């Protein structure tokens, strides 16, 4: 009877027709919380990937999400960005946006950007074009058709290129980049998009120690103005950026706290860190 409800909706007197409402209301962050995730559940063919998960991310925070392989970190990001629909639970962006009711594009337009675990870029477009498409602009059809690269935007892209060290490859097709370069490009796309909330899945996989450091620096700089959620397995890296760390295990939160607390946590050591990375051990070879 969905159509009946739709129909009724059409004649509600307390509101104008939904099509006539202004398209997007800005995100309300009164409570200083950017992302609410409550009682979330997802299962795939009976396998529970996310299990009664609750998580709150503060506005401007840089949050690290760690957890065993298969704990559900990527799946969580999938849900927030609208790729996967959960079985139950709620995901709100600010006070006024129920993300579960939106599709991917709408969520992205709210200012939620994402870097994928497996680097995904537009392989046949040049590095430059990849960045151009990521810019924060009006992304409707007509404006895009008549859009022109402004001087500012051009400069912004140049800046990003510089940051990610791909200035020389700017006209190269993104598909021809090496794995690590693609990682950088994707980070660059995040930078260009100037998102409110960044979801970054394993940014330093395949990077050298020094590049890792540089990434950490970058993310630290982003935090504050942007809300950043980072998933990583590189503990050194996590330590270098993290203020709060959340540990996921089998789809729910196992522990949350500062890096030091986490590294002491017996359970976390057992299921995730192993002795090597436990607090007090010969840390970080």
């Amino acid at each position: 009877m969905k159509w009946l409800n739709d129909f009724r909706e059409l004649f509600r007197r307390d509101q104008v027709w939904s099509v006539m409402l202004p398209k997007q209301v800005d995100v309300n962050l009164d409570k200083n919380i950017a992302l609410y995730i409550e009682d979330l559940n997802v299962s795939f063919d009976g396998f529970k990937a996310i299990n009664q998960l609750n998580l709150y991310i503060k506005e401007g925070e840089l949050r690290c999400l760690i957890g065993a392989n298969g704990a559900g970190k990527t799946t969580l990001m999938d849900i927030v960005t609208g790729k996967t629909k959960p079985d139950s639970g709620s995901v709100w962006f600010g006070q006024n946006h129920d993300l579960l009711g939106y599709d991917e594009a709408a969520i992205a337009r709210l200012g939620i950007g994402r870097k994928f675990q497996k680097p995904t870029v537009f392989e046949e477009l040049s590095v430059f074009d990849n960045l151009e498409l990521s810019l924060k602009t009006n992304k409707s059809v007509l404006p895009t058709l008549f859009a022109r690269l402004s001087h500012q935007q051009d400069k912004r892209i140049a800046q990003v290129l510089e940051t990610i060290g791909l200035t020389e490859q700017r006209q190269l097709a993104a598909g021809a980049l090496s794995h690590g370069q693609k990682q950088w490009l994707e980070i660059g796309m995040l930078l260009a998009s100037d998102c409110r909330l960044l979801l970054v899945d394993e940014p330093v996989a395949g990077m050298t120690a020094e590049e890792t450091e540089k990434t950490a620096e970058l993310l630290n700089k982003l935090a504050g103005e942007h809300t950043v959620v980072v998933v990583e397995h590189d503990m050194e890296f996590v330590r270098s950026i993290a203020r709060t760390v959340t540990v996921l295990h089998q789809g729910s939160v196992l522990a949350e706290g500062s890096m030091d607390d986490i590294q002491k946590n017996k359970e976390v050591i057992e299921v995730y860190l192993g002795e090597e990375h436990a607090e007090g051990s010969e840390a970080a070879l």
Partner: protein
Amino acid sequence: MKLFSSIFNFKRSGEPGAVIVPFVALLFVVTLFAALGNLVFPEGSVLHVSTYSITLLGKYLCYAMLALAVDVVWGYCGILSLGHAAFFALGGYGMGMYLMRQIGDRGVYGNALLPDFMVFLNWESLPWYWFGFDHFGFAMLMALLVPALLAFVFGWLAFRSRVTGVYLSIMTQALTYALMLAFFRNEMGFGGNNGLTDFKDILGFSLQSDTTRVVLLAITSLLLSLLLILSHAIMKSRFGKVIVAVRDSESRARFLGYRTERYKVWLFVYSAVIAAIAGVLYVPQIGIINPGEFTPINSIEIVIWVAIGGRGTLVGAVLGALLVNYAKTRLTAIFPEAWLFALGALFVVVTLFLPKGLFGLAGSIRKKLLPSPAAVKEVKS
């Protein structure tokens, strides 16, 4: 216009764009030459161009436009439409209906109101959907609007439901197949299998006159040039980049905030309109439109023209259409009983040895001859 400013900026725009201006110029020269050759130079003169060649050229150019339409969606957005002949045919039927109404009482039964095929099938009155088609403007509007609307509805349904890849291809094929069966039915009121034919004149000009033919050819050539330039401009715009991005990774584009389904729908509609224009121009030059135009094989052939020319290159698609159709004309005349071997072999050989089509071949020959400075730089870096 911003759109057009980018066209002339060839230094940055890479290869396909760079040849559009020369190609359009060539097209103009050929058209002019053909027009003069047909109208001014008498038969027997070396410069004479026969009416046969004019109609043939007109047909090729319509097909070229059709190839352009397919290249826009397939080459740039990866939407392999195996049903574009449907839009072409619908446009053609729109024009055909206008031409049919122009016959007036000059039909064999002398019935001013009804086309002949309705008379001998005992139709009492003109069906409602034929009304207005005696007005050229309305008929042209419908000839473009109906295919556009069909493309919109089909695209809106399919792209919104995220029907992609071969699923989409086969559905477009189902679409044109269903339309073909429907138009075969005499009850539909479009002349059944025989379709619409025996046209007399267009806007008062006799279709049999050479001048009309030449003018039609010139219009076709002009529109083809315009559409080529417009399509190029669109593909060079940011819209075009989004389209390519959608082809690469549609979901990634969505995560960047692009409503990819809308981009696809509009591109699809644009392409359908090009196909419809091609159909509109095709019918008066060919003199018949019938459901055979809807056959799925036709749509597959269009795709082949594009592939042979080089997809995603616009001019390549146009050249592919011209080449294949010229080859067909020649081969059917030279080896009426074995030309299919030659044509089939051509398809196989081009696919195997020219993965990027003829246009790609031209490009790589040029590269070999004069390596671009950019390439040299890349090697060193």
